[in-house]
């Protein structure tokens, strides 16, 4: 008998466990359309989709829906919610309802832009890091380590402060702090594909490394990225609001939710100025989280059991 450590499989198992605990799923299956369909049938997901659809609609139809100009300083200042102003008016007499509704036109597209940029940058770097390995991988991973060593909000704040407050700079700051997550997730997906038999088989058939990257690696690593991106959409809305709250977001008079909360926070007695935009953020982020969560469950059969 041998009482000796068998490190290899131990390490492999433990790695795997940690990965899973961190939500970094080793990508095995694929996200099928049918799975998405059945995901969509859960009541919570349906609710989240409806909520999200409502927000998208609100964003699209904001001018019609809001009834009032979100930047017109036409009303009395600090009016509590009433029939004329459903959510009251703010410190400049603007209609809070109109501003909350118009806020969606800002937060939703910006969140999408942030996530798309971060996904593009992080995805590409992660893909190459996982596929090329060695020096490039090492370099990318050290850079991501570096970004992780800063708390997200502090780094974003520093970047935004350094470049000056504006929509564009807030987006840049948030892309800078969020791309590493994608790089990591895609990289670990790619790593598992890199050692997969189907990639080996492809290469054995004479498929070149770059074609294999495109045909075999890329399509199989988008799944986790899609899930992550959905969850990160919510996070992007939150972070953008946080930056705005600190005065580092879109410039006034843009009806940004975080900035609106900041305005309301100056005086607690006018609670409506901050409560409604807060609820707006909450519902949007919640919708993204519920959907992302359900997608993640779908990707990982371990969780799916409890849902059906």
């Amino acid at each position: 008998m041998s009482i000796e450590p068998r490190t290899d499989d131990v390490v492999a198992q433990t790695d795997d466990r940690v990965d899973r605990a961190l939500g970094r799923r080793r990508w095995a299956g694929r996200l099928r359309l049918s799975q998405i369909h059945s995901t969509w049938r859960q009541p919570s997901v349906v609710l989240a989709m409806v909520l999200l659809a409502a927000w998208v609609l609100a964003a699209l139809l904001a001018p019609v829906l809001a009834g009032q100009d979100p930047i017109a300083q036409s009303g009395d200042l600090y009016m509590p919610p009433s029939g004329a102003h459903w959510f009251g008016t703010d410190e400049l007499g603007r209609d809070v309802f109109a501003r909350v509704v118009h806020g969606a036109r800002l937060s939703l597209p910006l969140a999408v832009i942030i996530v798309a940029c971060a996904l593009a940058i992080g995805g590409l770097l992660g893909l190459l890091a996982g596929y090329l390995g060695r020096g490039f991988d090492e370099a990318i991973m050290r850079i991501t380590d570096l970004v992780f060593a800063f708390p997200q909000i502090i780094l974003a704040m520093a970047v935004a402060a350094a470049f000056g407050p504006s929509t564009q700079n807030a987006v840049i700051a948030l892309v800078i702090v969020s791309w590493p997550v994608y790089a990591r997730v895609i990289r670990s997906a790619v790593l598992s594909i890199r050692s997969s038999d189907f990639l080996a088989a492809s290469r054995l058939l004479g498929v070149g490394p770059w074609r294999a990257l495109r045909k075999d690696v890329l399509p199989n690593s988008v799944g986790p990225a899609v899930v992550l991106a959905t969850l990160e959409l919510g996070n992007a809305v939150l972070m953008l609001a946080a930056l705005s709250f600190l005065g580092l977001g879109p410039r006034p008079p843009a009806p940004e939710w975080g900035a609106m909360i900041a305005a309301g926070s100056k005086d607690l007695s006018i609670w409506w100025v901050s409560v409604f935009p807060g609820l707006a953020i909450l519902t949007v982020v919640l919708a993204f989280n519920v959907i992302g969560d359900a997608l993640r469950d779908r990707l990982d059969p371990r969780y799916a059991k409890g849902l059906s």
Partner: protein
Amino acid sequence: GGSGNGGGAAGGSDSDGGATQGGTLTVSTSFVVNSLDPGQVYEATGALAVHAMYDTLVTFEGSDVTTPVPLLAESWEVNDDATEFTFTLTDGAVFSDGTPVTAEDVVFSINRLHNLQGSPAVTVEGLSASSPSEGVVVVTSEQSNPNVPTILAMPAAGILNAEATEAEGGTAAEDAASADAATEFLNGESLGSGPYVLDSFDPASEIVLTANPEYWGETPGYQRIVISNVEAETQKLTMQRAEGDQIALDLSGRLLEDLPESVQVSASQDTFYFLTLHQDPAISEITSNPDFVRALRASIDYDGLAALFGEDALPAAGMVPTAFPGALPESEAQQQDLAAAADHLEASGITDPTVELMYPAITYRGVDLGTIATKIQFDADQAGIEIVLDPQPIASFLEAQTAGEVPFRFSPQSLNYPVAASLVNNFAPGQASATRTGWTEDRASEEIIAAGAAVQSAPDAESQISAIQDWQHLLNEDSPYVTLAYNSGVVAATETIANAEYSPAGWQVDLRAVAPQ
């Protein structure tokens, strides 16, 4: 040991001091304090604390900033052309370490202030001090300046213990700006002769003063004063549920509404808010266009804007806030006139102008400057002027402002010292602020240059007042400044406090005088 009690009853009850002395006074204000070195202090909270720790030659009482009264100087004389001021020091004044205050200390302090070249040094530009004999200090001004006593009442002119300061690396020599190393020490310990001494200074949260046991004058009102860094909205909540002796300093406008009856409020309109438009066409073709400035001036809804500050703010009539002699009467307040704005805009020859408005992203006296800027943006838009807002961190704003290349900016302004003429020294063509907006003498009308000179050369207070009013009328016609509104400095205090009066002198409330009732 702690003098407070957990029961929440007034901390003002006395535990171990004299019968008239209170326990702890809490002053809540939202602050960014850079230094408690008199030679460096330049913002309101620093001035508040420094004023309590450092005696000056002369001072003001209560809210009256017109008549300097003796403090370390028991009397003073001025020569005819107001260039030489001779102060005779009082006997018996001692520093907190017990050493007597001498003329050397005064000379040292004034010269150090000058040579440090810190922010407050502007006020003593052209002044120098010397001591011809024991107990006598002579301050000379390069130009005639009747306001020297007022300047020397400012906290920055607080008298330091020269020997002790030098021991900590301080110097009053010419090269003080680079050689002086006492500031760091002074941020932890005070070296003055005032009724309070510095106990601790935490730039983020609080400044704690304790009564100076060696104080040579009357026993200070409290054993301990805590100047606490509290956001305006929280100050309001604190006042609503005040426990103990509390003063709040940022409760202006709306925040004053529905405070308990018992809270005493004292206010004085000593601040103005204004827009500055750069006059150099190389910087901006638009802002340097006088008709454009007029169009903008006419587009502002002054009443509505003042309302944003709260009930007791006023639309501006001229540059001098109402707290000071020389302010224009309320009846002359500017009015919105969109038709005129349109005419001016047409006259300017500029169509669809777009300008970027830079301002510091801060809350000042409980009012978010972004809110005001947004209102300006909205009003200008009514007149067809598009304004893009550019909020900047305060440091960036100051840097850009100093660089003098900002086309269009918005900021609050208070006086360097509580005399309206100090504005002329700063804003008249060719003066410091004017230069930064490209308003050189060749770009200004002779008339306005002459009006400014008239203020400076006014022989007495009365003629100075009318001169400054004329000057303001001219500014309203044609200048790079659009003065928007006056706002009050406010002191809100619990009913248990006496002498909690707002002073436009720069220190907001005289902590030396505040005492339990």
